[in-house]
């Protein structure tokens, strides 16, 4: 069952940890997956956000001014700040290993998050973790 497999792949992502199987199934049907080949770009620094990307499989590097700052992999997401603020992205995202992402287009991001508060909560947790990791003294 393709839809079931997709739902089970999504169910592995921390951001969707609180969703029921039925909700995951709906989500898989509602949101499309996009694939990106190794070596290509997903986002370029300075461009306007093209969506909220949630990595289902693969690896991507985060580059700021050509310096790699982090590697993102299954369960990571990116593009959210640009979508939420409607501002250009702050980093390049380059594909390190063939990447498959769930993509929420900018115009649907708000309605999606409002409709799924537990996803928003998990996203918020991850942002808090990022802040703390960047500055351990911060609370």
């Amino acid at each position: 069952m393709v839809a079931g497999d997709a739902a089970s792949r999504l169910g592995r992502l921390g951001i969707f940890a609180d969703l029921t199987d039925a909700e995951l199934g709906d989500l898989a049907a509602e949101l499309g997956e996009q694939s990106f080949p190794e070596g290509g770009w997903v986002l370029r620094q300075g461009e306007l956000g093209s969506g909220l990307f949630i990595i289902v499989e693969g690896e991507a590097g985060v580059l700021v001014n050509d310096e790699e700052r982090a590697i993102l992999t299954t369960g990571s997401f990116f593009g959210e700040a640009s979508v939420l603020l409607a501002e250009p992205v702050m980093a390049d995202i380059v594909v390190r290993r063939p990447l498959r992402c769930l993509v929420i287009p900018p115009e649907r991001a708000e309605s999606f998050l409002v409709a799924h508060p537990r996803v928003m909560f998990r996203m918020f947790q991850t942002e808090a973790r990022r802040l703390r990791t960047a500055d351990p003294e911060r609370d």
Partner: protein
Amino acid sequence: MNMQNGTALPGYLPIAEHGIIGDLHTVALVGTDGSIDWYCCPAFDSPSVFAAILDRVRGGFYRIAPAAGDWTTKQLYLPDTNVLITRYLSPAGVAEVQDFMPVERVRGRVHRHRLIRRVLGIRGQMNMLLNLQPRFDYGRDEHREFFYENGVVFRAPSICMALETALPLQPDGSGLRCGFTIEPGQSATFVLEQVPETYVPRRYSEEETKEAFESTVEYWRGWLAQSRYQGRWREMVHRSALTLKLLTYAPTGAIVAAPTTSLPEAIGGGRNWDYRYTWIRDAAFSIYALLRLGFTEEAAAFMDWLTQRFSEPRPGASDPLQVLYDIRGGFDLKEQILPHLEGYRGSAPVRIGNEAADQLQLDIYGELIDSVYLFDKYASPIGHDAWSDLCRVVDWIADHWDQADEGVWEVRGGRQRFTYSRLMSWVAVERAIRMATRRGLPAELSRWQSTRDEIYHQIMRKGWHSERQAFVQHYETEVLDASVLLMPLVKFIAPGDRRWLSTLDAITSELVSDSLVYRYNIEASPDGLEGDEGTFSICTFWYVEALARAGRLDEARLVFEKMLTYANHLGLYAEEIGLTGEALGNFPQAFTHLALISAAYCLDRKLG
């Protein structure tokens, strides 16, 4: 050695091919192949997270090893610590994994139960593969795994755990894998941690890992520095001490007999027991060994645990003590078979719980009171309440010592009037009399003295087999039993007594095989259990001590030195040694390490 990427281990490593790390709440067994194949969290007696040692397919494991190619391994402890290093050597280079579990040193702080694996590049370029396949609750629990950007959270009904790292992790079945390359000067850290359900994994900085590593090293070195042992075989004695400390449950001071369950006494056999409990019997030996080495704090903690046991009522039981307890002092040790696990190399059944708890084993009172006596003499005088409780126990023994029981070896073939049980009843009453006399404590001395003498005469009359010229296993047999090796050690008989020397000769000719000692002859004395067994390491160390006390120092030294060669590469012992020198039974076993310390101490003193 070739590795595989699948979700099962290729086979079973020999039991002895493991090291042990721990945090004074639980331990993990780390194979020389880099696989953690036994780990219960958060405590020794919690359900397992990794149990591939009991079932390579269904048990779960956590391996870090070279991804492919030919390689060999070496394993060692960072000196004077329980930080384990597994080294991988290959034509491509050398890498090592440091495995450790930080010990929480601030009382009252929530223990985080972290198992840290730090991979270091040493030489060349090494392609490494991590494969983590947890199987919660002995493989009975389903779990879900959730990937975050700094790790994965595994959520099972009974527990949540996270694996945290800066490296990208990939799903692999219901676990994960991570391939990475490591070069000289580089390191990669993986932290496995018990976490709350809503936890979001975080990346550990190199500084944080280094600090956890250094504080763990400092903890173990600081602890070992309290040892006063300066004699021969110091490294082995200290490794035994470090192992005993690892088997201690810090919140209560209890020491588990071994941290594993169902590692077989014979491959393919059914003598597979859960040792993750605390036996009263081990107490006297533990306290003696800990005091001898100068670890009074641990001895005091264990003594507290013990005295609580005989001060509490046992609902529905007529005897004052249970044979074994859980590490918190609980009574309920209901035995259960786990039929879905095939057992180590097919040695079924796998059991959890231990029904020996319900047996009558009269010797435990002697061991208990001997330990109180030693603590009273060498550490801290007994208090009023403990003495009152102890008097109650001695009075009970005076009324109940002369009955059949299951005996020291926990046989399941029916009760007998065992010589060893009476010997230890004698110890119980004799030590109580010594304490009362020396401390001027109130006691029914004349009653106790007549009980003591009655036991003594009965052993001399009925435990002594005049045709065999030896003390025998029980009153209705001519079978020998290694437990009587304790007779001179507990000062029941003079080590040069004629009856004792001829018993020692009889044991030497019947139960000793190339220095190793069987506990009894199973064929001559069926014990109600199927299968064979190896020689019992504790009996060999008792034998060393008995020889040393009898003045047969050359023999004692040779037996001891030979016994040391049966330790594994790290100085660890299981309960038994098989015909080809392989370690058998639960691992590592506290009793054996206690006996090693005692034998080394005694022999070293006798050698001068």
